[in-house]
């Protein structure tokens, strides 16, 4: 109280030491681990627990584990250590599903192609006009490599595609096809035509209200009923369509977020220079709105990537489904934990990379959006 009073009268407060700005490991330890008595107790307790738990975990995971696909050695462990032999033995089944064994370089090449394309796309410097046709080429090359039937590649029917390439394909198709639909829906939701607006809102709210599984059920049970008799769509196409329709509703909300972030002045300025509705959207609104939501696009990509794992339920063998295929072998079934850890690690690496990238982008675009004279979001 006296200190506060002294401060109020304009005299410096000498009753408390000035805050220190010490750097280095020791002050850091003091501030972050031993700041107060309960804090220190928590640190010691947690530290002790970690020291007890971590070494056995590391031994189980790494040092004592069996890496060779040697079933007997794995059994001899009696679960006291991980049997990565299961993953070594089955990694091609897990990664590529039932794709013909001799031809598995093709899904590998196709997947690597997409990863390289993603890496190139990730850099804002490559956000140019050529990117769209480039992705069309990548997608075509992917399908050609997977399906074959040309350039001397033997044809492989879509029913045999599986593993990581299938996950990548469904993500890619779901994402890229849902962007235009989502764009139309988002514009529809803000349209002045009541019918268009109502239809868009109804679609978006309905899809967002139901779980993805029901949409996949629609894709596998109802789509065949909707098509004219004699016309058949294979299950891969139907499921890809289902994921697209599902993702489109979420994409519409992402785009709407960008549209809402633009101030009215942009519309008014466009109208005052005499632009039509289409010109306004194409030249003024969409370029700004879409740039604002690029980080959200990356997050959508991430959730689509994770959502594709649900296709296991309608008996497709994506990465998750292919693991279950591998676990169908009764000999190795006991080592399911290792299998799930492996698949989880694949998903984790991809997803963490995407979410970190999105955060980085947000910071970068954030500073771009805050540049002098920029639109205030």
């Amino acid at each position, binding site marked *: 109280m006296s200190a506060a009073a002294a401060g109020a009268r304009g005299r410096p407060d000498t009753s408390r030491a000035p805050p220190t700005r010490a750097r280095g490991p020791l002050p850091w330890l003091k501030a972050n681990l031993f700041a107060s008595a309960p804090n220190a107790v928590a640190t010691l307790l947690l530290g002790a627990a970690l020291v007890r738990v971590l070494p056995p975990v590391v031994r189980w995971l790494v040092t004592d584990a069996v890496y060779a696909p040697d079933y007997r050695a794995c059994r001899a462990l009696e679960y006291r250590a991980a049997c990565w032999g299961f993953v070594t033995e089955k990694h091609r089944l897990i990664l590529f599903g039932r794709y013909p064994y001799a031809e598995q370089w093709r899904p590998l090449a196709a997947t690597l192609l997409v990863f390289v394309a993603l890496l190139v796309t990730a850099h804002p410097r490559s956000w140019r006009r050529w990117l769209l046709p480039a992705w069309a080429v990548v997608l075509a090359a992917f399908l050609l490599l997977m399906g074959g039937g040309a350039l001397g590649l033997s044809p492989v029917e879509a029913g045999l595609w599986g593993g990581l390439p299938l996950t990548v394909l469904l993500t890619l198709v779901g994402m890229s096809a849902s962007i235009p639909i989502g764009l139309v829906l988002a514009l529809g939701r803000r349209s002045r035509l009541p019918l268009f607006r109502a239809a868009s809102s109804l679609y978006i709210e309905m899809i967002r209200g139901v779980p993805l599984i029901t949409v996949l059920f629609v894709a596998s049970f109802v789509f065949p009923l909707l098509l004219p008799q004699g016309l058949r769509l294979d299950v891969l196409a139907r499921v890809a369509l289902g994921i697209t329709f599902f993702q489109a509703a979420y994409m519409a909300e992402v785009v709407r977020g960008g549209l809402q972030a633009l101030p009215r002045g942009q519309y008014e300025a466009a109208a005052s220079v005499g632009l039509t509705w289409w010109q306004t959207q194409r030249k003024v609104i969409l370029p700004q709105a879409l740039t604002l939501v690029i980080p959200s696009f990356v997050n959508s990509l991430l959730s689509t990537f994770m959502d594709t794992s649900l296709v296991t*339920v309608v008996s497709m063998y994506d990465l998750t489904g292919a693991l279950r295929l591998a676990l169908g072998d009764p000999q190795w079934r006991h080592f399911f934990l290792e299998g799930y850890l492996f698949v989880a690690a694949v998903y984790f690496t991809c997803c963490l990379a995407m979410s970190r990238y999105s955060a980085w982008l947000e910071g970068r675009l954030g500073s771009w959006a805050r540049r002098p004279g920029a639109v205030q979001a």
Partner: protein
Amino acid sequence: MLLALLLLAGAWLWSNTRANLAARQIHSGFHFLREPAGFAIGEGLVPYSPTDSYLWAFAAGIANTLRVAAVGIALATFLGIAVGVGRLSRNALVRWLCTAYVELLRNVPLIVQLFAWYMAATEILPEAANPLEFAPHVYLSKEGLQFPTPVWAMGWALALAGALIGILCAVGLYRWARARGERTGHRPRVFWAALSMALALPLLGWLSGGAPRALDVPELTTFNVSGGAGVTPEFLALLIGLATFTSAYIAEIVRSGILAVPHGQTEAAEALGLSRRQVLRLVVFPQALRVIVPPLTSQYLNLTKNSSLAVAIGYPDLVSIANTAINQNGQALECILLIMCVYLTINLLTALAMGFYNRRVTLVER
């Protein structure tokens, strides 16, 4: 023109569907709901036998969905708040552990986690004849979790009534204290009075009903555990998977909600002479809640929707039962329509409740 296009497309799809249904000899319509379902359901709150109708089977499925969602939401909220606050801890070790928890759970698809939990429950846990007993008469095995439950008696009904009245009284007392505080500037302390009211009344009800103490205790027999109440490994796996997965998202919501309250608010409250607890209770918490609640509700909805993944591990929720029904009678259109209607109704009800809440807490700008 747009209308005409939509109608045309609808008519085309409808005629295709009619033709296809005719070709497959499926009679569309909802009258199948009255026919006996004929399949068994593993567990549930609703008494059901295979001779009951499809309609009743769907009701059992909805009850199962709501059951796992309700318990899951409670568990996820608790875990999520703990981890979210932990991520803001001053202790670096706590912070790191909570961050690792969130990142690990958020970046692996839920279905992979569910499969792993389910395999763990059915492969690693001991056989039913030799279960883990981690509290007296609480058994965990491949058959699931078995625990003692009180035998229903009059005393329990009275206790329940007492609890209801007690809570109402406590709320009334609290409101009275608040109103008085606003009128006179002096707020009576009613916390302990309200708490004892809420605790004493159910106790009184229990005692006046003869203080029933009979428990239905699971006992270990030669082959398995019998008696008591139990949940299946499917339920356990789904519950743990959903709760931990959702808790990671809730943790992030709680963290950003707390961070969203500007530090100036805390400083201003301290300058007014509020104590640390008052600052949290009166200034930071109400403002953080305003940011937290809307996304929290959507996480609750997500959890409910995600519970449909039950179909992958065989827990008989609404979607698995619909799936079984479709495989049995081919009435895919009707069954899927039914699922969608149920989920949309849940969504609509939540949205209405949210709207009500939002109107109450929105800032009144002057």
